[in-house]
């Protein structure tokens, strides 16, 4: 996505002067062609990312909580998906993928020129990586919609089992508006600040994973530990469902990563292969480290490792070679294992489903690692004059800016949410379980 820019953002349309046929702005050069194969691939990719979220992520998370909170997690993911998809077409797409004008503001956030999808028609197009090749703008914005939806849905794992449902909804609306849309704009839009720096983020390592991971950590710290954390048995209620969810995540991730190529080309095939081998390596890496440390290789371990590998390969999916991807996966599996075991226990925060340990830490490993594995000397697709040191520095800058933006933004937004709805259910409700307390139903009635 690094080289993406959106035709309608250019020229007169961005100024609101011509709300039709965005291609006209450039057709003096060459009218972009829309390829049916590309279009089909983008539509399928969007659907795959939806599968990844509902039910994939919902089941992955749901299996990890206790029986009494199963529905609350499924419900939160489903409701977040629904809410953000509406906000995206109302104003999210416009804020992320239109020009916000000259200067600092435009580098951080877009404008409202496409609010309510003004001017977007079945004939309008969005650029791909190849000059002169475009995809339907509806396909592009639907694909991007799924990214906006899954990112806040990832966060709910951090404060699962004790947050109020109303707080999830309000926080999600605020967070996508003030954190996600600006970061997506900064990283993926041609006038965005991080895009301008040359930061590499093929499919959303910073925008999706670091972003959600850090917001999750902030949430876990501000909402506090679950009652009985560290004392009561909080074992996952169904690792079977977690397994099903993890597999759906993996499958859906092909849309996420290979779809981010925007064209059905060899680049998409490379991203697809990387999305197979990196998580495979990461799952094995986690498994081996765990077996050496704890004596047994667990299913939850290999599944968690694979997800960590998927996270880590996300920013590098179309930029690394397969061998580089395997190395990235091996590193991510081991590092994330230590993050969710040693680091979390040492610091004592209750990130219930390890959103930070896997998405935050894996995202940082991937974002910085992308600067290394994209090098042509290591089998990556970087240009001949690629500088590993220089690129790694840019990647670190991008990571730090993302950390700061989402860290500070999330603190403020959790404060606001806490003042309006309160963040936490009462202790009695928490003991009873969120399914009954918040939703008035049970997951299992035997």
């Amino acid at each position: 996505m690094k080289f993406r820019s959106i035709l309608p953002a250019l020229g007169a349309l961005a100024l609101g002067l011509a709300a039709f046929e965005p291609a006209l702005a450039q057709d003096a050069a060459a009218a972009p062609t829309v390829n049916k194969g590309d279009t089909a691939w983008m539509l399928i990719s969007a659907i795959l990312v939806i599968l990844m979220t509902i039910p994939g992520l919902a089941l992955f998370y749901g299996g990890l909580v206790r029986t009494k909170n199963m529905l609350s997690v499924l419900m939160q993911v489903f409701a977040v998906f629904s809410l953000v998809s509406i906000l995206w077409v109302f104003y999210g797409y416009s804020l992320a993928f239109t020009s916000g004008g000259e200067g600092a503001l435009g580098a951080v956030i877009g404008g409202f020129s496409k609010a309510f999808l003004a001017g977007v028609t079945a004939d309008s197009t969005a650029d791909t990586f190849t000059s002169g090749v475009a995809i339907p703008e509806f396909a592009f914005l639907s694909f991007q919609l799924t990214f906006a939806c899954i990112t806040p849905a990832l966060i709910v794992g951090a404060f699962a089992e004790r947050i109020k449902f109303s707080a999830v909804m309000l926080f999600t609306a605020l967070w996508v508006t003030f954190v996600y849309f600006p970061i997506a704009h900064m990283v993926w839009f041609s006038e965005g600040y991080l895009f301008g720096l040359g930061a590499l983020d093929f499919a959303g390592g910073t925008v999706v994973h670091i972003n959600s991971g850090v917001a999750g950590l902030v949430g876990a710290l501000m909402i506090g530990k679950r009652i009985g954390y560290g004392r009561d048995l909080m074992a996952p209620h169904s690792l079977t469902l977690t397994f099903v969810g993890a597999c759906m995540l993996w499958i859906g991730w092909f849309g996420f990563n290979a779809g981010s190529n925007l064209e059905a080309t060899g680049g998409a095939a490379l991203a697809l292969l990387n999305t197979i081998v990196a998580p495979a390596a990461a799952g094995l890496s986690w498994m081996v480290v765990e077996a050496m440390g704890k004596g047994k290789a667990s299913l939850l371990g290999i599944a968690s490792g694979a997800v960590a590998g998927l996270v880590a390969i996300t920013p590098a999916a179309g930029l690394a070679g397969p061998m580089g991807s395997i190395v990235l996966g091996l590193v991510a599996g081991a590092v994330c294992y230590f993050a969710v075991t040693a680091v979390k226990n040492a610091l004592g925060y209750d990130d219930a489903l390890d959103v930070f340990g896997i998405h935050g830490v894996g995202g940082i490993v991937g974002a910085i690692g992308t600067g290394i594995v994209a090098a042509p000397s290591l089998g990556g697709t970087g240009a001949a004059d690629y500088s590993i040191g220089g690129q790694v520095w840019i990647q670190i800058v991008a990571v730090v800016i993302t950390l700061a933006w989402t860290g500070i933004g999330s603190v403020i937004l959790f404060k606001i949410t806490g003042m309006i709805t309160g963040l936490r259910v009462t202790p009695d409700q928490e003991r009873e379980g969120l399914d009954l307390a918040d939703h008035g139903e049970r997951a299992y009635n035997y």
Partner: protein
Amino acid sequence: MKIVMAVIKPFKLEEVRDALTALGVHGLTVTEVKGYGRQKGHTEIYRGAEYAVSFLPKLKIEVAVPSDLVSQVIDAITAAARTGQIGDGKIFVTSLEKAVRIRTGETDSDAL
């Protein structure tokens, strides 16, 4: 009349039932329970979280028998449920004041 209550290893249920049936005991109640005695539990690890699981799953069987049958019932259960390993369970016997068969209204030994 007595109630013989035994806590046994779950996989021993069929053998115990067969042994009791052979004695002419028809009908017993089984409950899935958890508990601990001398048998050690195990450790479960989910990512970084380690849980010592000390309550192990067992089956509790309860059977009401005439007093003169108690020692045979105890012997039968002991023989059938025994593996020789720690965790085979325990048998408790208590007195039973009254028994009623709901369908017919029969009482005490007629109801067993």
